[in-house]
C-alpha cells in the first residue's frame, strides 16, 4: 500500500537517536508512521571486526556526500566529504561508543549561570533537568545502561539505580583510575548503553574491543537500530524507507506541512503524505532540509521566521594525549572507555575559562592495529618508515588514550547554510559549515590537555604525547571543521524570535512540524549528547501522544 494518496499519521525523517525513539513511541501508541532514512539498512550481520571494512573504509558513512567548510565569511571555502555523519538506519548510534551521560542540572541554564559572554550566544534551555529526569531514566531502561549509580559525585542526581551493573575494568582502566586517585580525583565506571548482562532481548557484551566506530555484531550495544526500530517494525505500523534522501517539505496553502518529498538512490522522485512531520536528520541535515524548503510563505527557509535555522551550530572539543606504559593494557578488549573522572566538569572561571567537561580513558588509538599504525603518523617527529617506525608499532598493546569531552560555547556566526556554489549529485545545494572557535574553547582545550598529560604521568606512563587531532592544538588559527557531536541549529526556547522550536520541540510557526535531534540543543553540554537526545525524544513523544489523544495536534 505505497500509493501516493495514502496519508500517514506521522512522517519521521531520520532514524538515529532522535528519530528512532519517535518512531518507536508513536507506532507503540497506534500511529501509522512512514520513516525516511537517507542511508541503507545495515543489520548486525553486516558488522564485524574487519577493521579495513568498518573503520578504515568507514562502513556506515556516506561515501559520495559533499559538503563545504569555511572558518568565517572572509575565509576561503573548502569542499569535500567533511562532516562526520553516519548515513544508515540507526544513524550515528550504529557506530557510537555508547557513552550514556545525563547532562548536569546546570547544563540546562548556561546563560543564567554564566551571564552573557562576549562573542558567544549563550542560552538557557526552556526545560530543566527535573523535567527531563524521568525521560533520562526511560532511555536508560530501554537502552540498558550499565553504570555505577552514585559513583560520580559530580554527575546529575539520580532517583533510581542504573538498570545494569558496571562492566569489568581492563588494565588500562585501572591505570587511569590509579592516576586519577593520585591527582585527588574520583574515578568511576563510565555509564554505557552496552549490556553487562542479558537484557531487553539482547545478549551481554563479549568485549571484542572494536565497537567504537563499528556496529555491534550481536546487538549488545544499544542503538535505535537494535532497540527502537525492531520494536516499531514488529507493530506492523512502520513503513521504513531507506536510501530516501528528503529534499523538500511541501506546505499547504494554510501553512501546514503536507508530508515530504524524497529522492531514491537513482534520483527518482517520490512524495509521502502525513498529518505530522518529525524532523530528525541531525543538526546539519535538519538545517539543510529546512533551508531547502523555502517557499513564498517562508522565503528564508521553512520555519525560519527567527532567522536562527542553522545558527549557533556547536560541537565538542576533544583534548587528548596518548600514553605508553610498560605492560599490556588489553585495550583491544572491552569497549571504548570503562573509566571516567568528572572532577574537572564544574564551571570555574578562576581556571581562565568557563564551563568544562568529562575525561576518560579511551582505546580510540589502540583497539585495532591499522588505526594505531596509521594514526601514529599524525604525531610530529614520528619516524615515517624503517626500523624506528616498526619499533613504534610494537607499542600497540601498551598504548592508551586519555581524553576529554569539553563544552563548546555557542556562537551566532557558527552556522550551517546552503552553499551557493556547490551542488550534490542530484543538483541540490550542499550544506556549508561556517565555524570557528570561541577564545574560551581554546583556553579550555589547552588546560584540559595539560591536566590529561599530568594524569597520564601520575598513572605511570613512560611516554606521553599529545594527540594531533583537530582541536588538539587549538589556537585561534586552528578550528574544528567537523565533529560527530552536532548541536544547536534549531534551538528550542519559549521566545519565537530567539528560537526555532518551542519547549515541546514543535515549530513556533508550522504547527505540524517537530524537531527531535541534537539541533534543538540551546547549548552543547560537557558530555556526549546521545542520551540527552534520546531522553528529549521520549519527552516530546509523550507530549505528542497526549496531544493526539486529546485531538489537539
Amino acid at each position, binding site marked *: 500500500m505505497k500509493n501516493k494518496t495514502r496519508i500517514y499519521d506521522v512522517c519521521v525523517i531520520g532514524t538515529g537517536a532522535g528519530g528512532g525513539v519517535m518512531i518507536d513511541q508513536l507506532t507503540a501508541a497506534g500511529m501509522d508512521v512512514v520513516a525516511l532514512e537517507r542511508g541503507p539498512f545495515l543489520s548486525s550481520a553486516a558488522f564485524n571486526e574487519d577493521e579495513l571494512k568498518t573503520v578504515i573504509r568507514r562502513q556506515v558513512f556516506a561515501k559520495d556526500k559533499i559538503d563545504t567548510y569555511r572558518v568565517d565569511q572572509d575565509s576561503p571555502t573548502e569542499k569535500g566529504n567533511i562532516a562526520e555523519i553516519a548515513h544508515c538506519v540507526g544513524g550515528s548510534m550504529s557506530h557510537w561508543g555508547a557513552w550514556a551521560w545525563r547532562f548536569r542540572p546546570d547544563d540546562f541554564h548556561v546563560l543564567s549561570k554564566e551571564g552573557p559572554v562576549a562573542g558567544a550566544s549563550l542560552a538557557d534551555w526552556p526545560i530543566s533537568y527535573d523535567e527531563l529526569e524521568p525521560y533520562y531514566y526511560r532511555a536508560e531502561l530501554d537502552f540498558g545502561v550499565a553504570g555505577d549509580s552514585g559513583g560520580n559525585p559530580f554527575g546529575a542526581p539520580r532517583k533510581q539505580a542504573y538498570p545494569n551493573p558496571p562492566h569489568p575494568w581492563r588494565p588500562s582502566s585501572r591505570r587511569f583510575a590509579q592516576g586519577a586517585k593520585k591527582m585527588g580525583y574520583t574515578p568511576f565506571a563510565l555509564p554505557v548503553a552496552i549490556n553487562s548482562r542479558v537484557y531487553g532481548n539482547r545478549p551481554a557484551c*563479549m568485549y571484542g574491543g572494536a565497537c*567504537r566506530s563499528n556496529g555491534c555484531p550481536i546487538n549488545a550495544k544499544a542503538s535505535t537500530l537494535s532497540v527502537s526500530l525492531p520494536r516499531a517494525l514488529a507493530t506492523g505500523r512502520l513503513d521504513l524507507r531507506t536510501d530516501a534522501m528528503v529534499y523538500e517539505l511541501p506546505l499547504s496553502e494554510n501553512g501546514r506541512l503536507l508530508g515530504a518529498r524524497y529522492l531514491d538512490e537513482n534520483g527518482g522522485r517520490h512524495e509521502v503524505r502525513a498529518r505530522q512531520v518529525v524532523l530528525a536528520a541531525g543538526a546539519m541535515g535538519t538545517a539543510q532540509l529546512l533551508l531547502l524548503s523555502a517557499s513564498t510563505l517562508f522565503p528564508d527557509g521553512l520555519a525560519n521566521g527567527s532567522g536562527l535555522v542553522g545558527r549557533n551550530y556547536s560541537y565538542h572539543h576533544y583534548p587528548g594525549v596518548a600514553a605508553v606504559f610498560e605492560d599490556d593494557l*588489553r585495550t583491544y578488549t*572491552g569497549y*571504548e572507555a570503562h573509566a571516567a573522572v568528572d572532577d574537572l566538569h564544574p564551571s570555574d572561571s578562576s581556571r581562565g575559562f568557563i564551563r568544562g567537561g568529562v575525561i576518560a580513558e579511551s582505546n*580510540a588509538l589502540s583497539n585495532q592495529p591499522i588505526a594505531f599504525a596509521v594514526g601514529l*603518523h*599524525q604525531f610530529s617527529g614520528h619516524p615515517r*618508515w624503517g626500523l624506528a617506525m616498526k619499533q613504534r608499532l610494537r607499542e600497540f598493546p601498551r598504548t592508551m588514550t586519555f581524553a576529554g569531552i569539553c563544552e563548546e560555547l555557542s556562537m551566532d556566526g557558527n552556522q550551517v547554510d546552503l552553499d551557493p556554489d556547490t551542488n550534490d549529485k542530484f543538483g541540490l545545494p550542499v550544506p556549508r559549515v561556517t565555524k570557528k572557535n570561541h577564545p574560551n574553547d581554546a583556553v579550555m582545550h589547552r588546560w584540559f590537555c595539560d591536566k590529561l598529560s599530568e594524569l597520564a604521568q601520575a598513572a605511570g606512563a613512560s611516554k606521553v604525547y599529545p594527540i594531533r587531532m583537530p582541536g588538539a592544538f587549538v589556537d585561534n588559527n586552528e578550528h574544528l571543521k567537523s565533529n560527530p557531536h552536532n548541536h544547536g541549529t534549531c534551538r528550542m526556547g519559549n521566545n519565537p524570535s530567539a528560537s526555532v522550536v518551542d519547549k515541546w520541540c514543535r515549530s513556533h510557526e508550522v504547527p505540524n512540524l517537530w524537531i527531535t535531534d541534537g539541533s534543538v540543543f540551546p547549548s552543547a553540554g560537557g558530555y556526549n549528547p546521545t542520551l540527552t537526545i534520546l531522553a528529549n525524544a521520549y519527552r516530546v513523544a509523550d507530549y505528542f501522544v497526549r496531544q493526539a489523544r486529546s485531538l489537539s495536534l
Partner: protein
Amino acid sequence: MSNSLSRRNFVQLGTAFGTALLVFAQSPRPLAAAAAAVSGNPEAFDQAQWASVEAITACIVPTDHEPGALEANCVNFIDKVLVREDAALLPLYQAAITALDKEAQLHFGRSFANADENERNQLLELFEANKVSHWPDTLAINPQQFLQTVIVHTLMGFLASPEYGGNRQYSGWKVVGYPGPEHHMGGYSRAQVEGRAAVLPVWAVKRES
C-alpha cells in the same frame, strides 16, 4: 568522543596525510572480492612494478628479528586493492613507480628494486623532500604524497585481515602484539579483560589459511 576518536584520527590524516584520506574515503561498500586477494598472482602490476613496490614496502616495514612487509606480502595487498577499492590510484602508482626507477637510474645506475638498502632509503628521502627530477607535471599529487600513500597502503597490508592478501600468516599482528579479532571466536572473558587470564591469539586456535 566515543563514536569519534578514530574518525577524528582519520580526518586529521587529511592534513597530515593528504592522499591517505583519499585512500580511506574510497570504496562504497565492503570489499566484495577479498578472498580472491589471497591469490598471489599479480592483477594490477607487471613483474617490474611488483618488484619496485615490494622494495618500497620493505623499506617502510623492514625485516628484523621478526617479519616485515616482505614476509607479510604487503605488495600483494596493494596489487589487489589497486584493482578494487583504490582502482582510481593505479595510474598514479604506475606513473610514480616509473619516476622512482628513473630517479634510481639517475643516482645509482640501477632500478629501485636493484638498489641496496642505503640507496633505497636515500631515494625515499628525495620523495619525502619532494626533490624528484622526473616527476610528471600531470600527476595530481606530489612525490611526498605518493610516498605517504604507499606508507598507508603498506601499513594496511601489514595489519589488515590476511584475507585481503597481506599480513601473511598473521605476521603483522604478531609483530605489533594484536591477538586478532576474537569476537567471532567467543570474545574475551571477564578474567581476560581484567588481565588475569592469558589471551590466546586467533592463529593459535584457527587453522592457517
